């Protein structure tokens, strides 16, 4: 079965999803989802290990040889992203049991977990597949289920934000479809490796340029790259907490992976460097970091504050892509990994407060830090990591990003990264100030620490933040390997 590893990663959650839907009780579906996520996390770990040691894995679906059949092609880049998705799912699900029971009516729980598994399968599928149209199908599987999941939020604004996301997401996916169609019309192939072989011959054509632009814009929408991020703050604020944790830590990462793949593997390097793509990524990254951080400072809802901070963090990742150097791409991949850890930890910690008092508005949560010390500790450490304090994972990604900027002597970018970190100090400081230094509301004096089942997954991520801040061998090693696979030459 070893050879079928890369495929089982997608098929197991796909098979489990319809089963979860017909199970009679929410807890049974949850148990199934948990088992599936744990198996997938193990498989993804084995896959990552196999890729690092033995090189690329290629799997022919249905026994049809590529480029005619669909090929699953795994190298260091997919393997690390698949690991993030599966790992975060396995950590989120223990957290989901109590949190989802509180926020979602019991009769909807089986369908909730079914949709969760579908979203999970879709995201894993995007990372595994080597066929660009298959990628579109998995993209839609994950997007459709995430619209449904977001709409399950408690407030009625969840419905409007899910609708908004549906419109924006479908536009993005259709843009991607147009781009794929235009490129298919010129090359006659949909396999990514085959496209990479054939595109250099036709790269001068206007059709190919147009297709490239459509694909980039389509995925920039999905990635919520500034200024196409408008759907993200609402969606993250009103979605059920578990879904916010899961999507914040995985969905944007997968979109970023697709952009990396298309930019560096599918299209030839001289084609991309002849277009202003790099400069556009730098520009939108810089404006995104500054403006989204400023927006974050003015938010009064902690979930929304963190959502804006996510937009800023996506800006950092865009900066790394913009440099198109091996250091830059390494920094992007490191940040992709680390951001999943810190945002996962922060949203989970905020979720435990929501579990206790049903809100995370600044007026309601004041003073709770002293009553919920473990939750408060998680927010502090996650926040420090977000700022980029040495000793946390966030520092490593910022460090490599600054190195990449210095290498290109892009002083403005260095300044932007530093200003962005200072702004992060302000908005994280604001949360900590409210949580710890203000007196608690009288109605909330009896609020106790959250249950163990919510704290344990949170602290797993918090400890991971510290671990990957001290031991950089694993993340940096794999990220450098991934940058190498993408064929980015330095300079």
């Amino acid at each position, binding site marked *: *079965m070893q050879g*079928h590893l890369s*495929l089982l990663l997608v*098929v197991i959650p*796909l*098979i489990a*999803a*319809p*089963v979860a*839907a*017909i199970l009679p009780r929410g807890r049974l579906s949850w148990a199934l989802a948990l088992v599936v996520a744990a198996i997938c996390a193990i498989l993804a770990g084995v896959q990552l290990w196999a890729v690092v040691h033995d090189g690329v894995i290629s*799997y*022919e*679906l*249905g*026994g049809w040889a590529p480029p005619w059949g669909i090929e699953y092609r795994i190298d260091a880049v997919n393997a690390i992203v698949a690991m993030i998705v599966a790992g975060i799912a396995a950590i989120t699900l223990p957290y989901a049991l109590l949190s989802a029971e509180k926020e979602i009516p019991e009769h909807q729980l089986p369908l909730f977990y079914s949709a969760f598994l579908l979203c999970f399968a879709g995201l894993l599928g995007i990372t595994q597949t080597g066929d660009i149209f298959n990628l579109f199908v998995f993209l839609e599987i994950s997007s459709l289920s995430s619209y449904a999941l977001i709409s399950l939020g408690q407030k009625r604004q969840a419905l409007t934000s899910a609708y908004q996301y549906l419109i924006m997401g479908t536009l993005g996916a259709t843009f991607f479809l147009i781009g794929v169609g235009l490129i298919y019309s010129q090359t006659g192939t949909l396999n990514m490796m085959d496209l990479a072989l054939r595109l250099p011959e036709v790269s001068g054509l206007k059709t190919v340029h147009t297709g490239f632009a459509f694909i980039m814009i389509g995925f920039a929408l999905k990635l919520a790259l500034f200024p196409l991020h408008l759907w993200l703050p609402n969606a993250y604020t009103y979605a059920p907490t578990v879904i916010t944790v899961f999507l914040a830590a995985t969905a944007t990462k997968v979109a970023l992976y697709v952009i990396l793949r298309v930019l560096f593997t599918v299209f030839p390097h001289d084609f991309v460097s002849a277009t202003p793509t790099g400069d556009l990524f730098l520009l939108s990254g810089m404006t995104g970091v500054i403006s989204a951080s400023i927006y974050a400072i003015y938010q009064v809802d902690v979930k929304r504050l963190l959502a804006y901070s996510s937009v800023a963090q996506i800006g950092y990742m865009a900066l790394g892509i913009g440099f198109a150097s091996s250091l830059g791409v390494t920094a992007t991949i490191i940040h992709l990994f680390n951001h999943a850890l810190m945002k996962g930890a922060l949203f989970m910690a905020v979720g435990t407060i929501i579990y206790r008092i049903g809100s995370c508005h600044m007026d309601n949560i004041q003073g709770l830090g002293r009553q919920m010390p473990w939750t408060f500790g998680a927010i502090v450490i996650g926040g420090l990591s977000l700022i980029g304090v040495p000793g946390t994972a966030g520092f490593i990604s910022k460090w490599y990003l600054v190195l990449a900027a210095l290498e290109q002597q892009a002083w403005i970018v260095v300044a932007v990264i530093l200003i962005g970190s200072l702004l992060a100090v302000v908005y994280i400081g604001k949360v900590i100030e409210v949580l710890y230094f203000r007196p608690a509301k009288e109605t909330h004096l009896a609020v106790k620490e959250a249950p163990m089942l919510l704290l344990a997954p949170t602290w797993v991520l918090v400890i991971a933040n510290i671990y990957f801040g001290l031991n950089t061998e694993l993340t940096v090693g794999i990220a450098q390997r991934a940058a190498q696979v993408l064929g980015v030459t330095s300079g």
Partner: protein
Amino acid sequence: MTNNLILRVVSKSLIPLIIVFALYVQFHGDYGPGGGFQAGVIMSAAIILYALVFGLDAAEQVIPSTILRILASLGVLIYAGVGVVTLFLGGNYLDYSVLGETRVAGQHLGILLVELGVGMTVFSVMLIIFFAFAGRGRP
């Protein structure tokens, strides 16, 4: 519309034909144009017509929504299950060739089963969507 004699008679005589046509499209799909997607939609159109003429309650008696939910899941499971069976027979996922004595026979059997799964799911999902919308707001 329940009282309109012409509608009742015409739809009663049309529904069997629609179902037969759906089955034709379903099982002809491996040789000619057709397949599970189209057959599922045509089949569900027959039930939707029945619901339009005879009322939602009558249609839900024909196919209760719990059965629809199970059918929808079962269809996906048949599809995925065929893939898993091919794995155990030593082929790649969804490699139908290992299913039969010869390559062609295997491919034939494989696509037939997979399309059956697709047909079931499309049929029941279309009806679930219809019932969900049409039944909204009823007591």
